[in-house]
């Protein structure tokens, strides 16, 4: 598989809403308060409001991340982003993450797959690709290194 860098996305999360035990696991909604993205072909800010990450801690201990975010480029285009991810790792590592400790992202699995939608002609290439990301979970919100799948 060949990839090339698309952007780094840094997300700021607001306090989460703990929905609690649901039929598929434990649901938590993490609203996105803002953020930034930066890459060779696009850069800008994350629009708060509808952006959030719908987290589901499955009964097998794997966390599913179902993120929707609206990105606004520095030249005014809006991009709708949807990402599906998985996060899991050894119990002590996951406990450290839950406490908000700084943890080397190599110690756990945090990967997502991403699709984009836009109506802006300059960014129409985003409508025609799939992307993958490595996540680095920080206390203030995750940092995603996003690569285009070539």
């Amino acid at each position, binding site marked *: 598989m060949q990839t090339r860098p698309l952007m780094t996305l840094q997300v700021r999360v607001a306090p989460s809403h703990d929905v609690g035990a649901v039929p598929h696991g434990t649901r938590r909604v993490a609203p996105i308060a803002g953020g930034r993205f930066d890459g060779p072909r696009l850069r800008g800010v994350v629009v708060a409001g509808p952006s959030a990450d719908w987290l589901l801690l499955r009964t097998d201990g*794997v966390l599913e991340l179902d993120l929707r975010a609206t990105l606004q480029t520095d030249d005014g285009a809006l991009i709708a982003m949807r990402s599906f991810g998985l996060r899991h790792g050894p119990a002590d590592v996951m406990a450290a993450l839950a406490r908000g400790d700084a943890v080397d992202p190599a110690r756990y*699995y945090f*990967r997502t797959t991403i699709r984009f939608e836009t109506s802006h002609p300059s960014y129409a290439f985003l409508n*025609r690709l799939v992307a993958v990301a490595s996540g680095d979970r920080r206390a203030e919100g995750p940092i995603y290194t996003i690569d285009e799948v070539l």
Partner: protein
Amino acid sequence: MTSRPLLLLRLATAPIQEIGPTPHGTLSIFPIVGGTFDGERLRGKVLPGGGDWVTRRPDGVFELDLRATLETDDGALVYLTFSGVRDDASHYFRTLPRFETAAPKYDFLNRLLAVGLGEIRPDGPVHVFEELL
């Protein structure tokens, strides 16, 4: 992003069900009647009963939405879904597979993300899946 080979999937499809123009594009359904998959960690056959819901968007790109059941050579069932993009103008055909299984031996499939490189061959579509490491 690093990856490693997961499997090669060959699908056998029945004649297309042409739903036609819908609000999202032109929808064609490819019923899956069989196939095989082969990789270092799992191999077996594709069971009849799945399908690929393919929508041709107004910009000419095909959106794929596949569901299939895989049966490993040792009898485990694996539920496979993928969404994907096929852009014939740029020869881009990539999918985002996900797996679900109850078989402990194949539990690793529940915990990984993958990318598929697709190709249309005369005898049917072929997908090479790579696990995201």
